[in-house]
């Protein structure tokens, strides 16, 4: 398998404004020494909450930002010394999908293609994202989902070898999100490597062949979503709401309860054996604990995140 991106010991620090400096810390480290590789033809995801360092990492690879230390090579080219060469060979969809509102889609595609010294195949690009009928429409007249599909088309004007998508479906309704997912699959199936960031677990599970879980500037795990889930020792999660404070000892008679997380009023139990659900419910009843919202869930990427960070993943 060919490696198309290599990131080694990447760090990025920002100077803190005076009023935010405390304990002698003058800088804030957004990325704290991450390393990973992306293989040709895959969909690679960086998953993490807001502020995890995903966008910073992506922008360093794309040539919009520079690392404080560490090496990045894209298609064999160094990200600092060959920035312009890299830009010619990648496509980028930014988090914001804003354009000049008073331009038509056709005009914008021609403009962006010209920046690469190319002629845009406007009909093919718009056909690909199902926006042929909007060729002569102004950007300001597009819906949110249409705008997002158009940003995909505009990121493809130079037929990039790697496509970067920064939170491609944030703020979209479920229908529009589905559309974008299918487009990403289609782009990838034509041989384009895709690197995306997301804070939607479902998106990472559905789209990504491999996913890096990132939190607080560090990558905690990299693997196929299914593999990450299978590696978790527990298989099932029970959660419920209660006002009572239950200590960990409360559960010690039920050996299948492996981990207890108290997020008052929510309690989350990880159990290794599905049979233990009955034991848990019987125990709560017999101790006359008032509870509600009982929920049973098999493992997902959210549990991987919980397991790695000890925090509940919040969108």
């Amino acid at each position: 398998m060919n490696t198309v991106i290599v990131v080694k010991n990447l760090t990025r620090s920002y100077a803190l404004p005076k009023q935010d400096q405390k304990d002698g810390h003058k800088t804030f480290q957004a990325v704290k020494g991450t390393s990973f590789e992306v293989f040709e033809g895959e969909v690679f995801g960086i998953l993490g909450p807001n502020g995890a360092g995903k966008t910073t990492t992506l922008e360093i690879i794309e040539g919009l930002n520079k690392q404080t230390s560490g090496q990045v090579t894209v298609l064999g080219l160094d990200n600092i010394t060959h920035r312009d060469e890299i830009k010619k060979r990648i496509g980028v969809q930014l988090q914001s999908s804003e354009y000049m509102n008073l331009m038509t889609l056709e005009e914008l595609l021609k403009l962006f293609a010209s920046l690469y010294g190319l002629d845009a195949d406007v009909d093919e690009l718009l056909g690909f994202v199902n926006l042929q009928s909007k060729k002569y429409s102004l950007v300001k007249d597009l819906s949110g989902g249409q705008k997002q599909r158009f940003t995909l088309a505009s990121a493809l004007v130079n037929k990039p070898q790697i496509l970067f998508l920064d939170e491609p479906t944030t703020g979209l309704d479920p229908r529009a999100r589905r559309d974008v997912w299918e487009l990403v699959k289609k782009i990838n199936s034509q041989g384009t490597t895709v690197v995306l960031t997301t804070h939607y677990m479902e998106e990472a599970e559905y789209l990504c062949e491999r996913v890096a879980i990132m939190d607080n500037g560090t990558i905690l795990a990299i693997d196929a979503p299914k593999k990450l889930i299978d590696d978790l020792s527990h298989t099932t999660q029970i959660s419920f709401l209660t006002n009572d404070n239950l200590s960990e000892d409360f559960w010690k008679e039920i050996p299948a309860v492996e981990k207890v997380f108290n997020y008052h009023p929510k309690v989350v139990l990880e159990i290794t054996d599905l049979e233990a659900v009955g034991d848990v419910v019987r125990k709560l009843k017999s101790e006359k604990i008032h509870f509600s919202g009982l929920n049973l869930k098999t493992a997902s990427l959210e549990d991987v995140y919980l397991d790695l960070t000890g925090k509940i993943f919040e969108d």
Partner: protein
Amino acid sequence: MTRSFNQLFLMNLRLVYRNRGGLFFTLVMPTIIFIALSILPIGRVLGETISYSDYLLPGIIAMTVMQGGIYGLAYWMVDMKSRGVIKRFLVTPIKQPELIISLLASRALVSVAQAVFLTLVAATFFGFALSFQLLPAVVIILLGSGIFLMVGLLISMIADSYEAAAPITAAIGLPLTFLGNIFFPVSSLPGFLEKVANVLPITYMADALRIIFLESGSLMDLGKDLGVLLAWFVVIMVIVLWKFRLKD
């Protein structure tokens, strides 16, 4: 001309003429001010031979050129920046000088069009005689336009939002408008303000346009005006080349 320059140049022209709100400021407002002040009985300023309307026309042209840079371009750039559009350009292999020059060239062309429009209004409704030389008029308008557009670029580099840009543009734009030889001669200002006015580029731009429009002056007749404008142009261009970088 490269393909990308043409596309960027076209983009800017399209954005100017499709922006209805912006057209109000670039065309309608200066025209209304011109017509209103021409009709009002302000009287004759420079002896019996020149009407106030004729005196005002070169001033109003200088004012619209100034506003196109200091308000028009600065606000447009701040808007592009705050909505992330500049970043969208920066992920492409765009050549920054090409973007900047296309921006300045297209907007300088708009300034010339504004001047033509105002001149035709003056000729049609207020008896302004179209007997001036075209070349020096175009040279002065392009020179002034270059100065104020580059000032607009520098403002957009300092300001990240409309709220941050507004006080800066006002601090620069208002003195240029009221002290800058547009509505009345600099010599009628109190001593201290007259000294300020004598430094402002717009003072010399308006003066040069008056020599061209009212005395059929050629480039040779513009001596000091042309020199001061060129000096301003070079100084600001050096600052732009030295300091200005496109940032998201």
